[in-house]
């Protein structure tokens, strides 16, 4: 089971029928995640065989963007897809009540932002497993997370069950763009608006920035929202470090307020800072880059 990614005409949902997902959750209530990790390891070669697009995208990522050898890239394509499988299993394991450890780095940044009266924007990307943070971090503020509206009922229910206890509200992307108003409203009320910053998620506006040595398109929306509201931006990365452990990084982006920058200049400064942090994180955890499409040719 993996996540389906198709930028532009992005499907953006987790593979598997609702029945399969329900069964997986039931299964994970009684068996250790490590058993499923092993099963996924056996399934991945077949998955890669039939999903040429994901295979090619991962190959290109390791060969061209990271400059790895053919042999290393070959195995990394496999390991990358397997890692995605583990992350998805962990997500369902959380729905099944399984516990994971979280090591937090710089959590004081998150706490400092949360303690202020004003809200803030929290950004995540499709690396690691940012969703796990929602299960760990109690906040005095409500976190409004922008999510793709096409996920299965099981996925949405699982998230809702866990998130509702943690002050997290899901905001599905809407065709009428009303999600922007919801997030904007959240910021006006001093809450947290959490959005993906690596894919144009419900908005066609992007800016081309150099990422891992080549131009790639990044969405303007999340940064523009922060600038419009005059709030700070926190980058969140949650990376898997062992079978039951995740490490969370909270990195405040450059504070562009009060520096006399135009809106566009402020947005650009934030975007450049975010992309450079994302690049650093991807270089540190290359196997947890989960954008299985040609990210650099959008």
């Amino acid at each position, binding site marked *: 089971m993996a996540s389906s990614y198709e930028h532009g005409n992005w499907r953006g949902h987790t593979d598997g029928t609702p029945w399969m997902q329900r069964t997986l959750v039931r299964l994970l209530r009684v068996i250790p995640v490590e058993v499923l990790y092993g099963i996924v390891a056996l399934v991945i070669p077949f998955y890669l065989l039939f999903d040429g697009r994901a295979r090619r995208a991962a190959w290109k990522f390791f060969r061209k963007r990271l400059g790895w050898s053919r042999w290393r890239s070959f195995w990394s394509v496999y390991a990358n897809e397997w890692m995605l499988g583990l992350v998805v299993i962990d997500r369902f394991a959380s729905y099944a009540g399984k516990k994971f450890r979280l090591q937090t780095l710089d959590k004081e940044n998150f706490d400092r932002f949360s303690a202020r009266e004003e809200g803030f924007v929290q950004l995540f990307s499709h690396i690691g497993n940012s969703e796990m943070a929602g299960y760990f971090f109690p906040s005095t503020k409500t976190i409004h997370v922008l999510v793709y509206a096409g996920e299965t009922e099981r996925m949405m229910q699982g998230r809702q069950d866990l998130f509702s206890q943690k002050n997290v509200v899901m905001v599905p992307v809407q065709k009428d763009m009303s999600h*922007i108003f919801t997030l*904007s*409203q959240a910021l006006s009320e001093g809450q947290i608006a959490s959005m993906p910053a690596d894919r144009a998620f419900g908005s066609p506006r992007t800016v081309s920035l150099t990422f891992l040595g080549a131009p790639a398109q990044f969405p303007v929306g999340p940064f*523009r929202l922060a600038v419009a509201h005059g709030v700070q931006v926190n980058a969140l990365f949650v990376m898997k470090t062992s079978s039951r452990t995740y490490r969370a990084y909270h990195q405040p982006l450059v504070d562009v307020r009060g520096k006399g920058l135009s*809106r566009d200049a402020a947005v650009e400064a934030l975007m450049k800072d975010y992309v450079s942090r994302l690049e650093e994180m991807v270089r540190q955890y290359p196997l947890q880059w989960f954008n299985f499409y040609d990210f650099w040719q959008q």
Partner: protein
Amino acid sequence: MDYNEIETKVKAFLVDELEIDEAKINPDATLKNDLGIDSLEVVDVVVLVENEFGYKMNPEDFKTLKTFGQFCKFLEEKLA
């Protein structure tokens, strides 16, 4: 607050903050096509309206507002 006052404030915001060409701004100018206010700029406008006029706009408001003149008239009615 009367219509002219609202128009002046909104116009100044569009020119200064969103860098929209002042010559393009007139009551008949369409928000989307003539002034280029799309979903991202709408956020800026919503924040402006809330901060400057104390009115919280919602998505439905923008469905009926097509031109700059209609937008200012709408605010005038809401703030009356």
